[in-house]
């Protein structure tokens, strides 16, 4: 289940409930300026929702800026939810990747999430990423090439997903370790090389070369 982190107090319970209905695992983050929920591992969530009304310290704009600047959270789609009538005062309107105004339904939330994800990751709302004959279904964790299933381990899958959903950007081994592995792992940065090699082998000749090695920097995915 994907985590969704909720910042701010007003409307938090309703938002939690709607996110749970959509299959997310919601976590409330204290409104005291921290960026992470108290429990759970440090893996970046699939989504962040900022409830703008009543946010003061930090302000909605400060919070969104800090999310965007955070090493691990910079790529998380952020939805700003304004209170009823919140459009009038203009606070938060320019922040995040998508905007919502209360009252909103689960359907609207779902549509906004899909739009925010597409903005950040370039993924369609049906959660299927296609690159030539390669197809990744992010909802079922299945990968197929020419319609034939290819079996990946969980970490191979997560690495491929991260690269595919962040095309054309170079990531260092350390950055990939932090953002894909994210938990205590004894493999070190060489683990990334080992996994890249395995993923390339499973991708086969047509797609293996899409994972570019950027000499003495890291790796980059070519093609969307």
């Amino acid at each position, binding site marked *: *289940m*994907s*985590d969704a982190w909720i910042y701010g107090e007003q409307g938090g319970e309703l938002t939690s409930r709607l996110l749970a209905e959509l299959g997310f*695992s919601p976590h409330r983050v204290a409104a005291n300026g921290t960026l992470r929920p108290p429990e759970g*591992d440090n*893996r970046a969530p699939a989504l962040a929702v900022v409830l703008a009304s009543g946010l003061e310290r930090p302000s909605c704009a400060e919070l969104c800026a800090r999310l965007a600047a955070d090493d691990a959270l910079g790529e998380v789609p952020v939805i700003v939810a304004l209170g009823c009538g919140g459009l009038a005062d203009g606070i938060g309107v320019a922040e995040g990747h998508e905007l919502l105004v209360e009252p909103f339904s689960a359907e609207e939330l779902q549509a906004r999430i899909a739009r925010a994800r597409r903005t950040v990751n370039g993924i369609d709302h049906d959660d299927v990423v296609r690159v030539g004959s390669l197809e990744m279904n992010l909802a*079922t*964790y*299945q990968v197929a090439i020419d319609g034939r*299933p290819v*079996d990946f*381990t*969980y*970490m*191979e*899958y*997560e690495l491929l997903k991260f690269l595919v959903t962040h095309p054309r950007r170079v990531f260092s*081994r*350390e950055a990939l370790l932090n953002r894909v592995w994210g938990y*205590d792992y*004894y*493999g*070190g*940065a*060489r*683990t990334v090389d*080992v996994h890249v*090699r*395995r993923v390339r*082998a499973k991708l086969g000749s047509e797609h293996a070369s899409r994972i570019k090695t950027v000499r003495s920097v890291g790796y980059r995915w070519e093609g969307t």
Partner: protein
Amino acid sequence: MSGHREFVLRTVEERGVKFIRLWFVDVLGLLKSFSIPVSELESALEEGVGLDGSSLEGASRLREHDVIAHPDPRTFQLLPWRPDSIVGRMFCDVRQPDGEPFGGDSRLVLRRVLEQAAALGYTMQVGCELEFFLFEALGSNGAVPATLDDGAYFDLTPQDVGSDFRRRTIEYVEQMGIPVKASHHEVAPSQHEIQLAHTDALSMADAVTTFRIAVKEAAHELGAYATFMPKPLEAHPGSGMHLHISLFEGERNAFHASDAEQPLSAAGRAFLAGVLAHVCELTAVTNQWINSYRRLGTGFEAPGTVSWTRRGAAALVRVPSRRPGRAGGTRFELRSPDPSCNPYLALALILAAGLRGIERGYELQVESLDDAAEGPRLPLDLREATDLFDASELARETLGDRLCDVFVANKRRELEDERRTVTEFDRSRYLRLL
């Protein structure tokens, strides 16, 4: 961890998996497996599965007691050799019912040492060359197995089943996420070698365990039999498991020496000194069978003394010559272990010995410059190795008293069984003479 579980559950559903095999190893590294139906998978991932902890204790069981096997969803794989029904597997961590680590679990022992290394900023990378024999299907117990070919080192033998077999094995292990670096025919007839590309130590121990079953499955499908027995044929070389070991600090190889005159960095030399200082105590684990000592120190380049070299081929440790621009590849090759060891305990002990060398600033002995290496000799037989292991403070600190005691009890029992056995040697040597 929820992502891992979800991945396993969805994959099982999408791929129509019927059964999941839960794997763990006993104190001797022998693979144990039990199957659960898919309907039990979710609760197995949440709560683990109860089993009798004495099943981890080898032939010498102390008493029954409950432990819980927790499948590690990061190790989930579909088994490639069961095309008729799709079967998944996961390695398990074995814990006490209260969630505390179970001292008899080899995997947890290795994890613990890896944590100690991580606390010092180090991660261990291991590459592995595994040798083994492929025989015709076995005859009666004790009979000399029939070889399948008369090939020799690097021979390409198109007419034999060996090439098919190696190709099939490599496909299996690569499908299971174990990258193969190379494979070739070894020195002895029917002997093969497959090199596994370097990875972190826990993944390598899992890989060796997986590799051994994959090789046996591939052989079985071709009507042959694969064995990792260290020395099946008297007149030919035995099978070793050469370990290529390096330490990394982040992305930097901590063994790489900037001074081209030095074989390894200061940390690398101290680590190697630690391994050499303790290797005799650890030999009971790296070479854990009576048969292991028919390989060690009996020629065919199998090491017999504690020595290291940059040139020779028969020393215990070889430090490969440096290649320009390949600082990341700096490593040493430990040549004593054989492929029938418990890879979790072997790697845990080698790492612990090396870390001790670094922490206590051990000095590396001088390089041996010829193959007839001077130096302390490795244990001559399992009895000597077991005595050294039993008395080793490093082994007890690394593995814990419980695991050491169970291991030693197993070895003493094996030695006692052998002592009572009248062998072919006895009859051929004494029957007519006496």
